């Protein structure tokens, strides 16, 4: 799926990376591994996606094209709501919760059950992106 996911581009949607760091090329395999690790850590997780700075989906649980489009739409709406690019988005609804985060030139979007702990979810997502940007597989191991 990672090859398919990588091929899907949503050009320019995440151009406004708030931390200004540019990530080295992150492999789809590393992103897939990171996503699997996030699912292991977050029991409330329903699905998630990891995107690069150009908005291309590196890994997604399910329909990568839909994840790419919908994540782009969320960031676009969020950026328009304020006077500067947003760093984190948290939307809680009756149907579930949405977390979106830009970090280290990458972006992650996750959907969880209601009442997931926001601070922990954002912490896990941030750790994962930091590790991916540093060339790891999102698990924070040195041997990755």
């Amino acid at each position, binding site marked *: 799926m990672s090859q398919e996911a990588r091929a899907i581009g949503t050009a320019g949607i995440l151009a406004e990376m708030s931390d200004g760091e540019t990530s080295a090329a992150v492999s789809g395999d590393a992103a897939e591994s990171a996503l699997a690790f996030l699912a292991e850590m977050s029991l409330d997780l329903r699905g998630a996606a990891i995107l690069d700075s150009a908005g291309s989906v590196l890994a997604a649980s399910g329909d990568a094209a839909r994840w790419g489009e*919908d994540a782009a739409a969320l960031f676009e709406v969020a950026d328009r709501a304020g006077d500067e690019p947003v760093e984190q988005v948290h939307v*809680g609804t009756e149907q579930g919760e949405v977390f979106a985060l830009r970090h280290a030139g990458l972006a992650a979007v996750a959907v969880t059950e209601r009442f997931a702990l926001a601070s922990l979810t954002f912490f896990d997502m941030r750790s994962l992106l930091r590790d991916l940007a540093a060339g790891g597989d999102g698990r924070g191991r040195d041997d990755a």
Partner: protein
Amino acid sequence: MTPKPHRVLLDRVSGYADEAAAYMRRRRAFRRPFARLYYRGGRAEDHAADSVAGGELFVAAGRLIEVAGKRPKA
């Protein structure tokens, strides 16, 4: 009579656990939908569901919830 030290500790831990449980019950009962944006430096902004930005955020989030589907069963 002075209670044994471990009793004091147990009572205190039980008290904290009860308070935490009550807090979670209240949170489930009263929490309403919200849209919150965070910016660099820790600044946060809430957007009401009946505002333009809030409405758009809920629509965009709803699409993501739809694509994520239900939680896979263990």
